[in-house]
């Protein structure tokens, strides 16, 4: 009859536990995406690994100690899942060697710094011309092919990529400056 308490508690506690889990997941999943983006070649890969990591985290949620850092715990799971995912990927110029992967992972593993940068994103986006801003966001939408956007705008592919690269650089510089001024 050892399984009785498990059965009894599963139904009642599942709601509370799931609510807590989703609350923590919502609060931390962006940080995991930022971390994964530097390790995985595409946004689809990031979403895929985050989804798998979320399912794994939920299945192991009993082992998570409330009060400790859920973000760090989830990052550990995500890093492991990303490693597994990477092993299953075909050889490609987009897949880094083990050595580079580890070096980048170490550098990416600073969620607080990224959170601070994120706070400046909106202000910096507002400093870009509205039309340019919308185009920049458009090419970052899931499922949107950059080449297709270039074609619709009547721009050559190469020129359009350079244009997007310049916008990103302006944003990156703006956010870095804002961070420096805070310090």
């Amino acid at each position, binding site marked *: *009859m050892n*399984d*009785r308490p498990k*059965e*009894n508690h599963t*139904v009642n506690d*599942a*709601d509370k536990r*799931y609510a807590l889990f*989703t609350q923590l*997941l*919502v609060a931390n999943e*962006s940080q995991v995406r930022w971390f*994964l*983006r*530097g390790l995985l*070649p*595409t*946004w689809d890969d*990031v*979403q895929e690994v*985050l*989804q798998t990591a*979320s*399912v794994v985290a*939920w*299945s192991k949620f009993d082992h998570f100690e409330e009060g400790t850092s859920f973000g760090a715990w989830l990052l550990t799971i995500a890093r492991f899942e990303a490693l597994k995912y990477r092993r299953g990927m075909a050889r490609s*110029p*987009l897949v*880094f*060697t083990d050595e*580079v992967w580890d*070096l*980048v992972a170490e*550098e*990416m593993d600073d969620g607080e710094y990224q959170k601070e*940068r*994120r706070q400046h*994103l*909106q202000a910096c986006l507002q400093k870009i011309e*509205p039309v340019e*801003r*919308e*185009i*920049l*966001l*458009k090419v*970052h*939408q*899931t*499922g*949107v092919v950059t080449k297709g956007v270039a074609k*619709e705008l009547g721009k050559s592919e190469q020129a359009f*990529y350079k244009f*997007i690269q310049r916008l*990103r*650089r302006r*944003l*990156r510089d703006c*956010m870095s400056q804002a961070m420096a001024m805070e310090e």
Partner: protein
Amino acid sequence: MSNTDCHRLIAAWLDGRITEEESAQLQQLLRDSVEVRREFVQYASLDSMLREQADGEATPLLFASPDPVRMGSMKWAAAVVAFVLLLGCLVFFDKSETRGAVALISGASGRLRWTGNEGVVVHDLAVGDEISGGTIDGISPDSWFELTFRDGSVARISGNSMLTFSDKGQKKLHLKSGFLSANVQPQPAGKPMLIYTHSASLEVIGTTFEVQAGVASTELNVSNGEVLLTRLSDGESVVVPADHRAVASSERELLKERVPEAVYRWKSQLELGPSGGHRQKGGFYGEWFPAKGASLPFVKAIPLVPRKNPSYTLYLAGLPVSRPDHKPVLLKEGWRFVLRGRLKVSDKIYFGIRVKQPGGDISGKFLAQMQAKVPTGNFEAVFEAEEFGIDPSERSPERLPKSPGGWLLHSVWCFTHKEGASGLEVTEVELLAPGDQPGAEPNAGSGRARETAFVKQGQQPALLKAGQDPARNQ
């Protein structure tokens, strides 16, 4: 190498257009320079932030209902501002391409919770909503959810089930627990629908099937077409054709076997556990207590607050319907249910069933209720076939027949809904075929013993029929 070259290489990697030679250059830079690594990290995280922002604006559910419960107010405000900006500038883009929705909700009932890929939690799912990938969670035994993908493939979960899904050119479903049925349209070459459970993976080209996922096993029933079932523990696979079933579990051989003929009788076996000894737990709701001395095992009803009627608290107990011989249970015309149990406070009892069309992919709920309150103490209530109607919570009742006769039984539940707890406890549920006497069901060898135990308590149960005044039965 100049800074510009470095940025160009990083951008090429992030855009997925880096060549092998450029990749070697970039990796060399990343190996050699911490500064380049920092640059790379800044651009990668910026890319992630922009994608989150861009996708957040394109998620249709965010704009369908600006309910603060659904997302943080800051996030909502940012999304609205950005959405308005986007609207003016992006009219020339194909909207269907930008939204990222992968499927349409074509049916839903009971308590459900959807967590989108962006972390948005939605409770009041509506038929017709388009949703992107995410996790759907059925949180009561009467929960039911139907998802129609863009190619017409349909997936349903019912009961306490949890399904994560995505479709980025290939449908991927993770059934963490519970029951899934699906009717899958032919899938693109080389991109079968993939379904993962804890213990198995399934590859589906185009077919109709049902999957029940437990912690350690996965049960598959195929109605049409065929499904490749792979046991994850050792990689063993079996192709399961139409009218066959297979169970992926480390405790038994992975073999396909013909689906047995349906039977017309069933009796719960609570002495074997909350789900009658069946490994799967889908459809169970309540608190299970084992036999103790002369006392029978029972399931105690526990509170359930319907989202649509939060002023009510139902006290509900639910049981999955399964037999040790795996035979499907069919409702033969003239069927009836006998519910045995106890009440601490006199109340009306409602009895519900979930049924599924044989060989089809439609399922639905039917409900019967006692017309008068059942007195306190032990009771035995009979619910005849003609007393069942389509459950009022069904959102697509037009798809269901007036009576579920001829359909397969999936789960049963009963509840009371007075203000306080009624103390409803269920000791047994029995489905009888026409002409059967209660206790005749052969699959429960201990039926007579249980009757004896019942009498031993010195309390003859009141025999009630739905629609009868219980006072006249005493």
